[in-house]
């Protein structure tokens, strides 16, 4: 079996996975089973490949193989103008395309030293928070599906549809929206945008409770998630893990509060945190984040300022020579853009710090000594999108 894995061209080889000392000796000297999970597997969320070394059902060692969805997004940026690259970032975390666009646009704006007008900031905040809810809904559905509860998926997709409808009405696209432009937003809000968003908030608030009735106190759900994939706060910081995964470990770190961007400093909201850093806490944190996002949206819709929606930016963007790192709190964690400008119309180098990629590092630590079923649960709870991991 090992030969089959070795014959494939992959950056990993099975020799690397040696059973670490301290892990229990295999039962009755049975040979270890090497299970190749993915890239075609229903619950590796795309094309992640995990090579598991198993003793029965117990995981002795894991190795992630990534790159099956690599499209060279960062390289493409070097051959596109700043404005032309904007749609490409939507294709990284396609579940939260709006957040990607926001991060990129703000990074370039910082580089150009322009600022989007307040109205654009407000609209950006509303759309980004809507997108956070959509992303968490998709996560909740698929995570529950991984653990075997098939019904929440349909509930969350039903409600996510309403968000996508708002996106479609606003900019014509549902998933890869390309909603923002450098310097503001291209489109003025359509008539009834505020009402639609408010109606959505009223619609989805009871629905979040509905998801909770299905899962939060479900005995099997508790057994499957409590104490599974525990990640301590120190480990999170060591590994660079951010987002809900970090907050579930008890670290109160949210870029929306720590380094406010867009219009966030104008709104009141809490940062939900957990204590145990297990899968259940991560679930609770994300559900609480959905509620907080609704709170932000409600405040923002009530206070959208009048004014232009697009700032004044030059037709041909030539940022001064220099570099910039700007990061935002995407639904999955810290999404950072590092852009180096050589003074031309195209960036010299773009490097993205994707939250999924960094969070995925924690996988082997979280599943040490767990069972196969836990691996699936942990991949789900990390909330990775392979488009973003591989870029």
């Amino acid at each position, binding site marked *: 079996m090992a030969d089959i894995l070795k014959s494939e061209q992959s950056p990993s080889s099975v020799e690397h996975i040696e059973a670490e000392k301290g892990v229990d*000796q295999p039962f009755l000297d*049975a040979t270890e089973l090497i299970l190749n999970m993915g890239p075609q597997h229903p619950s590796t969320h795309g094309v992640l490949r995990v090579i598991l070394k198993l003793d029965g059902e117990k995981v002795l060692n894991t190795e992630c193989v990534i790159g099956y969805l690599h499209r060279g997004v960062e390289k493409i940026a070097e051959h596109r103008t700043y404005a032309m690259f904007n749609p490409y970032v939507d294709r990284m975390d396609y579940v939260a395309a709006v957040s990607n666009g926001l991060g990129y646009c703000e990074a370039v704006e910082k580089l150009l030293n322009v600022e989007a007008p307040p109205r654009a900031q407000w609209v950006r905040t509303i759309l980004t928070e809507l997108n956070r809810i959509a992303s968490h809904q998709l996560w909740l559905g698929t995570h529950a599906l991984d653990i075997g509860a098939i019904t929440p998926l349909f509930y969350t997709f039903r409600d996510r549809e309403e968000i996508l409808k708002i996106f479609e009405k606003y900019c014509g696209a549902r998933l890869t929206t390309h909603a923002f432009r450098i310097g503001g937003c291209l489109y003025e809000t359509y008539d009834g945008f505020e009402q639609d968003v408010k109606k959505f908030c009223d619609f989805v608030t009871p629905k979040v409770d509905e998801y909770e009735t299905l899962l939060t106190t479900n005995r099997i759900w508790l057994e499957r998630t409590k104490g599974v994939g525990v990640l301590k706060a120190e480990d999170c910081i060591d590994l660079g893990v951010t987002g809900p995964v970090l907050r579930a470990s008890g670290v109160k770190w949210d870029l929306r509060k720590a380094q406010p961007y867009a219009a966030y400093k104008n709104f009141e909201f809490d940062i939900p945190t957990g204590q145990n850093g297990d899968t259940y806490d991560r679930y609770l944190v994300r559900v609480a984040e959905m509620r907080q996002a609704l709170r932000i949206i409600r405040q923002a819709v009530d206070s959208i300022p009048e004014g232009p929606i697009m700032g004044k930016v030059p037709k041909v963007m030539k940022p001064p020579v220099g570099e910039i790192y700007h990061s935002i709190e995407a639904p999955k964690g810290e999404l950072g853009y590092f852009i180096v400008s050589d003074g031309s119309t195209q960036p010299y180098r773009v490097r993205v710090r994707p939250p999924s990629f960094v969070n995925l590092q924690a996988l082997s630590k979280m599943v040490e000594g767990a069972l196969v079923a836990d691996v699936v649960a942990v991949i789900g709870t990390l909330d990775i999108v392979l488009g973003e991991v591989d870029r």
Partner: protein
Amino acid sequence: MDPVATPYFFYGLSAVAVLSAVGVIMRRNPVHSAIALIFTLLSLAGLYLMLYAPFVAGVQIILYVGGIVVLFLFVIMLINIERMQREYQFNKQWLVGLLAAAALGALFVAVYVKGQSIFPQHAVRFPEQLNTQQVGKMLYVDYLLPFEIASLLLLVAIVGAVVMAKKRI
């Protein structure tokens, strides 16, 4: 009710039992052996039915086929089959095997010759409905002490197996 076509069933079941028993020891692949064993045990259950012992037949199916062979397979599945097939096993002790087989054969012949006078020609016919009760009465009234001793023996064996298999309990 009268039994149907008894001799045919008897010979058919016996043939299946013997053939699959031969299969158990002839196959090199242990999983095939275990599957052949299932057929042996099932045809034995059929033979018990013909002896008016439906309870024993049911227990044979539920315990041996449904329980023990499943555990056999459970263990065999984990063994590396390729290595297993290459190994040269007990074949070197064919002389002992031959002696044991001859002794067993002699015993069978002796039982056949002498048994005709010892055992009655026909099995005693219990009323079919009461078979389970009869077995229960035998086990729990007439032979209670031996039965309990046997179960204690089994318990000891189980504890021993667990101690041997698991280093840390």
